[in-house]
């Protein structure tokens, strides 16, 4: 085909123990938005990393505008006109927008003319309808604005093909709309956009054609107007998906409050106010889901309750006992358990053994130590017991945690947290990055714990997860709770609007 922008044929990429791409065929036409759809681990990222020169394919060929190419580095791909907007931004935080845009550009003059650079970056931003101040420092910008800088960077270099890796994952719905408009403006000029995503709705609304990957292979390419979300979901997972609410043995008792926050505020690491007067309660056996786009104060909320961050005002009660401010050890003693987002760094000591990690919370008790000396045999038997009960796949309890798979790491963490018989559990993105089987297990454990009377605060960006597990949903936006509603009856649209800062009145 003459108007093919990128054609990848029979691409194979193997990693030790995994075939990430297994004969992928992928063709993108000039001037279209082409979505690359697939679940986590379907091979989307590997494919885009091959296209941008980060990985070299083991087999297969790449044609750019009909000419075979082979990229040895990201720079080579960039020079050939393929630009990537990464999910994790590649920006230099203390630099200005303009400085980031011209960074590494061979056309930049040796002595930088700041004024004319700023002028040109501003022109480019205007042309594609992207609101961003070229003189602002990156760290001052919102995530959405930072993404615009990433796009400006590749446009400034004259990239004809733009790859966006899960671009909306960090955006509010309103920012996502603006991004889609920008993408349209780019394709109207004949540029080509490859849009990587696992979200069906946005793929339907933004793309011209869609290629679906599953398990490292191409399932097929379809024109967007000829398909439906249902068909795409089927292609993506290879089975029909039903999404249902978890069944509960014991419903929670919102009247019997195990955790209450009254007017709690705190600052983030940079000293700016991250929580503004949070009021929330969790009842015995109740699961309260905290929805929100990452970075709206969820992390600080979890840390304040876990005693890892001091709150500047307000009061936290566990049961009817006030929580000591900023003291993790007394939070543990009071019955607060915490499954942090970053399980291998904050949650566990990655290089330590499974049994030591399990003992980390209760090694001070007379059960595990006496006069400061650890009782190794008790620690081992405690760990063996929990490993069996929580079905952790590990050679033995002396294996370092970092050698376990993600799902098993999370099981170790849950085993430890639940072994202390907590009243309250704070779980932050507890299933992120896990495979389907492990997600199921983790969710099951959370529901069981709630059935046993633990009050759970489930902080999560995945709305499906919140809607299927939570009894009540609160929405966080810019450090405030903007809504508190029963999970039954809540809709994705309603939550999406609230997460994007719409007020409850306008969302109805």
């Amino acid at each position, binding site marked *: 085909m003459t108007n093919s922008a990128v054609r990848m044929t029979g691409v194979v990429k193997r*990693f030790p123990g995994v075939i990430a791409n297994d004969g992928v065929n992928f063709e993108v036409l000039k001037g279209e938005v082409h979505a690359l759809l697939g679940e986590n681990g379907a091979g989307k990222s590997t494919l885009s990393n091959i296209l941008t020169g980060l990985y070299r394919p083991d087999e297969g060929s790449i044609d750019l505008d009909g000419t075979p190419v082979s990229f040895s580095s*990201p*720079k080579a791909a*960039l020079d050939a006109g393929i630009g*990537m907007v990464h999910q994790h931004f590649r920006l230099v935080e203390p*630099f200005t927008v303009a400085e980031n845009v011209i960074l*590494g*550009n061979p056309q930049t003059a*040796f002595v930088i003319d700041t004024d004319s650079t700023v002028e040109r970056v501003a022109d480019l931003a205007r042309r594609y309808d992207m609101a961003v101040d070229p003189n602002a420092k990156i760290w001052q910008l919102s995530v959405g604005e930072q993404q615009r800088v990433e796009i400006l960077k590749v446009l400034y270099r004259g990239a004809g093909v733009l790859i966006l890796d899960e671009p909306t994952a960090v955006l509010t719905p309103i920012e996502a709309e603006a991004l889609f408009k920008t993408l349209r403006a780019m394709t109207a000029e004949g540029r080509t956009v490859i849009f990587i995503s696992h979200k069906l709705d946005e793929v339907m609304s933004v793309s011209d054609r869609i290629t679906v990957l599953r398990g490292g292979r191409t399932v097929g390419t379809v024109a967007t107007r000829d398909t439906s979300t249902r068909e795409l979901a089927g292609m993506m997972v290879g089975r029909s998906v039903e999404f249902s609410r978890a069944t509960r043995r014991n419903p929670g008792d919102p009247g019997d409050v195990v955790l209450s926050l009254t007017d709690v505020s705190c600052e983030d690491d940079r000293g700016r106010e991250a929580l503004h007067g949070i009021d929330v309660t969790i009842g015995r056996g109740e699961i309260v889901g905290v929805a929100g786009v990452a970075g709206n104060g969820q992390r600080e909320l979890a840390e304040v309750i876990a005693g890892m961050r001091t709150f500047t005002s307000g009061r936290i009660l566990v049961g009817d006992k006030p929580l000591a401010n900023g003291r993790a050890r007394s939070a543990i003693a009071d019955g607060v358990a915490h499954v942090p987002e970053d399980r291998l760094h904050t949650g566990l000591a990655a290089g330590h053994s499974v049994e030591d990690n399990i003992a980390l919370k209760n090694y001070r008790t007379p059960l595990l130590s006496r006069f400061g000396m650890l009782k190794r045999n008790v620690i081992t038997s405690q760990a063996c017991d929990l490993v069996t009960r929580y079905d952790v796949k590990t050679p033995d309890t002396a294996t370092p945690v970092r050698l376990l798979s993600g799902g098993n790491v999370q099981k170790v963490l849950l085993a430890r947290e639940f072994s202390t018989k907590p009243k309250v559990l704070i779980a932050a993105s507890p299933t992120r990055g896990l495979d389907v089987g492990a997600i199921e297990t983790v969710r099951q454990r959370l529901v069981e714990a709630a059935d046993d009377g633990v009050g759970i605060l489930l902080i999560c960006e995945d709305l499906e997860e919140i809607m299927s597990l939570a009894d009540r949903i609160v929405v966080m936006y810019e450090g405030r709770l903007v809504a508190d509603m029963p999970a039954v009856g809540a809709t994705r649209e309603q939550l999406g609007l609230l997460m994007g800062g719409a007020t409850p009145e306008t969302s109805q």
Partner: protein
Amino acid sequence: MNSNLLVVIAASAIFYGTPLFFAALGGVFTERSGVLNLGVEGMMLIGGVTAAWSSLHVGGSAWFTVLVALCIAMLAGSILASLHAFLCVTLRANQTVAGLSITIFAGAVGLSSYFANIWKAAQDPVTRQVRKLDVLGLADAPILGPLLFNHTILTYLSWVMCAVASWYLFRTKIGLQVRAVGESPQTADAMGISVVKYRYIHTMLGGALAGLGGAFYSLAIVPTWVDGMTKGAGWIAIALVIFGFWRPGLTLLGAYLFGALQSLGTVLKARSFDIPGDVLDALPFVMTIVVLVLVSTRFAHKRIGAPAALGVPYEREER
């Protein structure tokens, strides 16, 4: 204290501050590229001993000998720094340990002393020195004479270098790229900037400047080779980089402040002030500790912003 004494202290602060500034400016370049170099002291001493040897053995006119000696000192410093770069950039070793081991390896009672022994560099006093100039014949002018017109060529060079370094780091494309490599090597790499190349070059540039600083001791301050003659100046230089917020201009001011503290002992003793010498000798180091404590406060952390990737080996993310 009369104004005359102040002028003497200020003039000698500039004199003693000059080698500190060279070494610290080298540190600014190195750290801006993301490499922490604790081997400065060792590199200064190697520079000092090679300069002393060259000054004694290279023939030709006096100024030619001195020029060659300075070049050799810089070369020696950068060769040692290339070892540091190899350890830290290529092998991705722990930068603190690598730097410390270079100072121990090359410093006092190390390689520099060994060279001094086999070359007999300490036998004769260095006669071909870096001498103070009488610029425009104004050296004896009141106040301004000693402050501005009676320094060595290296001091004037350091002023030029300070301006050039600021311009280089903050106004040129290459400077922008160096800072990007030190702040976010991932970003730099993705934009096609060679992290390895930039780190090697700026580590070696730092080593060359440390060598030049060391040469200032053996050709101007002492001026002869004495084992361990820099007496911890390399460590002060490392603190100066932080004190100067990784900016050449502020680093120059800091260097003169520490130069003043170092010269204080000499000046006051010469005027028979009754202060124990040990106390005076300890002043720069006490000040170093005070400075490091101050810049480690939370407030300072928010303000000054060390290069974010300082001391972190860069590895391209792979599966």
